[in-house]
């Protein structure tokens, strides 16, 4: 029916004068946009299939290609935007939930960009990170509340298990299945080289990757895919996933098409079946139940591994976090609503949850007011884009940050937001062997190492500017931040002053 026709969002522009008909784009595009027309003796494209991933653009040897946003338009309407209209057409045609991936593209305020960082002058010298030690080592875990002494008077140094990070950054959960073997391997290798951690997500741990155990966080999610004693013991820490920022309140769905070969084996489910994680953990209906699971996992691992509880940033996140901090968990991970996902209902992704900056500010304050901030470390994620975001997050009160989207971008992701289709041209969110092999784990891990090292340099530079030479003195140091263009209320929630104050 004609009303089902949707004009493509993007157009493939080919400069025919430059095109040499090498057919690289045809081979590279898993979406089958490009084709060589024998009669016309030239390349043609079907832009209706294009997702704007730039694979062809990047690989065209003569720079003959570019992708542009179409100027085909509905009649201008600020309320009924083109997107709003086409969504209705789509759903009227299919009767289905609209799916999407990666973080929300909507224009919500990004509070990181509304905060400015301090620097010292005159009364307090800045410190040059090239000449003086500048420390970013971070320990995650519970801190002892009371000093205990041995009979000889020395301090009893036994603590609950801690994670030691060389930089306060970790790669957050992305399951094997939602992303490829090579993507996982890149993350694991990089975590090892950097002295940080990557996270298995809820897809289990491929047997090849047990060797990276000391730098691995193994996740236990509501589907319990791939969870067995060996898995729990393999990692350095265990994460219970209660929620995800991109889709708070709902579970996960990995389509059967991605459950092939090793993915099915690792998840311990049959090939081709959809992997459905229920919305709640069916054994956790209250905070007491969470406590039981925390201790069950600790029992299973001899109290040798810290337990992380990951929650989504929702309206009452501080009350939830306060409960989690008393549940025996060692670390709380909070995921903000701009965080990414391999697949989520678009309406949920774009409308449910709150920004991580506000969630972090109120959780940190709440835990301090209750005097239990030292019971847990706080790790936040949900769209950390660069080192300045990290500095601001730590100054607001985070111990460390989780990054996923930035890591994928480092691996080549072009944020086309169609991971759920399983045809990632960059070899990341796909299980198709011909696509997976496009990502070389050695090269990928090198790029991740570069990224985190670059950020670490920048963090040190900014710390030095503030006259701070150790990351712990930045943590929760909100006086180092000033708001710009924020309302009284926003400043109050963030616990910072406005620029000029």
């Amino acid at each position, binding site marked *: 029916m004609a009303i089902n026709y949707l004009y493509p969002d993007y157009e493939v522009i080919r400069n025919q004068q430059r095109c040499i008909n090498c057919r690289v784009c045809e081979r590279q595009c898993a979406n089958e946009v490009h084709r060589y027309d024998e009669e016309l003796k030239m390349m043609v494209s079907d832009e209706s299939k294009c997702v704007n991933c730039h694979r062809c653009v990047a690989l065209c040897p003569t720079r003959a290609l570019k992708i542009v946003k179409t100027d085909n338009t509905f009649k201008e309407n600020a309320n009924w935007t083109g997107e709003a209209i086409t969504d209705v057409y789509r759903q009227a045609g299919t009767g289905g939930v609209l799916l999407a991936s990666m973080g929300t593209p909507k224009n919500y305020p990004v509070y990181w960009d509304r905060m400015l960082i301090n620097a*010292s002058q005159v*009364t*307090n*010298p800045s*410190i040059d990170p090239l000449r*003086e*030690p500048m*420390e970013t*080592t971070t*320990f995650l875990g519970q*801190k*002892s509340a*009371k*000093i205990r002494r041995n009979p000889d008077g*020395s*301090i009893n*140094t036994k*603590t609950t298990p*801690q994670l030691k990070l060389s930089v306060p950054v970790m790669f957050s959960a992305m399951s094997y299945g939602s992303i490829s073997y090579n993507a996982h391997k890149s993350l694991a290798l990089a975590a090892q080289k950097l002295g940080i951690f990557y996270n298995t997500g809820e897809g289990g741990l491929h047997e090849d990757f047990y060797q990276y155990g000391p730098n691995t966080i193994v996740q236990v999610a509501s589907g319990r895919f791939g969870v067995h004693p060996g898995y729990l013991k393999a990692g350095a820490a265990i994460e219970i996933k209660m929620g995800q920022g991109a889709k708070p309140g709902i579970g996960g769905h990995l389509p059967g098409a991605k459950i092939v070969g090793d993915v099915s084996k690792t998840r311990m489910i049959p090939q081709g079946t959809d992997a459905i994680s229920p919305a709640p953990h069916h054994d956790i209906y209250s905070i007491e139940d969470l406590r039981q699971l925390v201790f069950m996992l600790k029992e299973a691992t001899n109290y040798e591994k810290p337990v992380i509880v990951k929650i989504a940033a929702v309206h009452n996140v501080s009350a939830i976090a306060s409960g989690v901090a008393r549940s025996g968990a060692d670390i709380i991970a909070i995921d903000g609503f701009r965080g990414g996902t391999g697949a989520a209902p678009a309406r949920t992704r774009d409308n449910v949850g709150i920004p991580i900056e506000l969630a972090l500010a109120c959780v940190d304050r709440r835990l*301090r007011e209750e*005097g239990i*901030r*030292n019971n847990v470390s706080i790790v936040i994620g949900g769209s950390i884009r660069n080192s300045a975001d990290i500095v601001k997050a730590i100054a607001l*009160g985070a111990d460390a940050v989780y990054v996923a989207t930035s890591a994928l971008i480092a691996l080549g992701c072009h944020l086309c937001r169609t991971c759920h289709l399983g045809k990632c041209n960059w070899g990341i969110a796909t299980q198709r062997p011909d696509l997976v092999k496009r990502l070389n784990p050695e090269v990928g891990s090198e790029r991740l190492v570069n990224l985190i090292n670059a950020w670490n340099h920048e963090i040190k530079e900014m710390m030095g500017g*503030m*006259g*701070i*030479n*150790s990351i*712990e*003195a*930045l*943590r*929760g*140091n*909100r*006086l*180092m931040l000033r708001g710009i263009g924020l309302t009284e209320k926003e400043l109050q929630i963030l616990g910072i002053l406005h620029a000029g104050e």
Partner: protein
Amino acid sequence: MTELQEDYPQEGEVRIPSGCAISGIFSRNGKRFGGQDAIRSIAVMHDRSNGLGGGYAGYGIYPEYKDYYAFHVFYYDNDAKNTCEKFFDEHFDVINLSKIPIRKHPRITDEPLIWRYFVTPLPTKLAASQLDEEEYVVRCVIKVNTDIKGAYVFSSGKNMGVFKAVGFPEDVGEFYRLDEYEGYAWTVHGRYPTNTPGWWGGAHPFALLDYTVVHNGEISSYDANRRFIEMFGYRCTLQTDTEVITYMIDYLHRKQCLTLDEVAHVIAAPFWSTIAMMPEERQKEYIYLRNTFASMLITGPFSIILGFNGGLMALNDRLKLRSLVAAEKGDMVYLASEESAIRIVEPDPDRIWYPRGGEPVIVTLSETGKKVVAAESK
């Protein structure tokens, strides 16, 4: 308070950076001496102060009342005094009260009412509070300082006292007639705040029980330290570095029972690279302390002299971004921002040295000294 002053934000409403001079003198053998040496020492460093705050702490100055907490209080009006005295009566046995004697001084003006009380907690109240005696006193002092407008307890230890004012420190010493007191230890502070009309309570030393801190520097970790220590019931109402440092030392030393050496290695922790080179057992201890009290690390320039009953501790930030000199002559120990401030009092020290960043100089009464101090108190 003048009208002009009311237009400015008061201390505690804003955070005011300041540079400073500090000095400390100590007799290991508990020999008591007047405040004039401390005055002479700080006067040499006149240019490090700008007349907006100076103060002293003397130890062993009240032997006749050594078992009583000595409260020094500023009042801005009689109402505040009445309310505060009523509060004292409800919580303490007040053994003695008087105005603190002063000598009028041309450069020290606008003084508040300055009173001294020797008190001991009311046994029934103390028992009912289920707190130990010191904690009881601390809570009462904090209560007065936060809840009674116009009253400020600026000294609250036993057998010691703080004397401070807005003015140059040498003038402050004369104003309080410190030559008439005798103590075995004195510390002194001259303040260089950058943008305040100055408030008497905001001058240093800052004191809690017998802990007093004089500090030179501006710490960059302030808000991280403040937000952490406030979890344990402290309220940083003055928003000064000295206040937060004092609270941290009180927490670590009195409440967590760390030794002063350990305290120093929390607030001026060695770098991880230094820790990595230590023998295993020490390494474990240092890692433990740094990790457990991570938020109590102080960064940015500081040099402090901590006074307490029976000793002094001097400490520099770990990069030594502020000067600090130490010297010895016989049983006497001298600590100061500048060598000249020592030489004016003791021109010929046996030993003079520059303590390394993060390495505390801790001096305490010798056995003789302890006996002397105990005997004098009888």
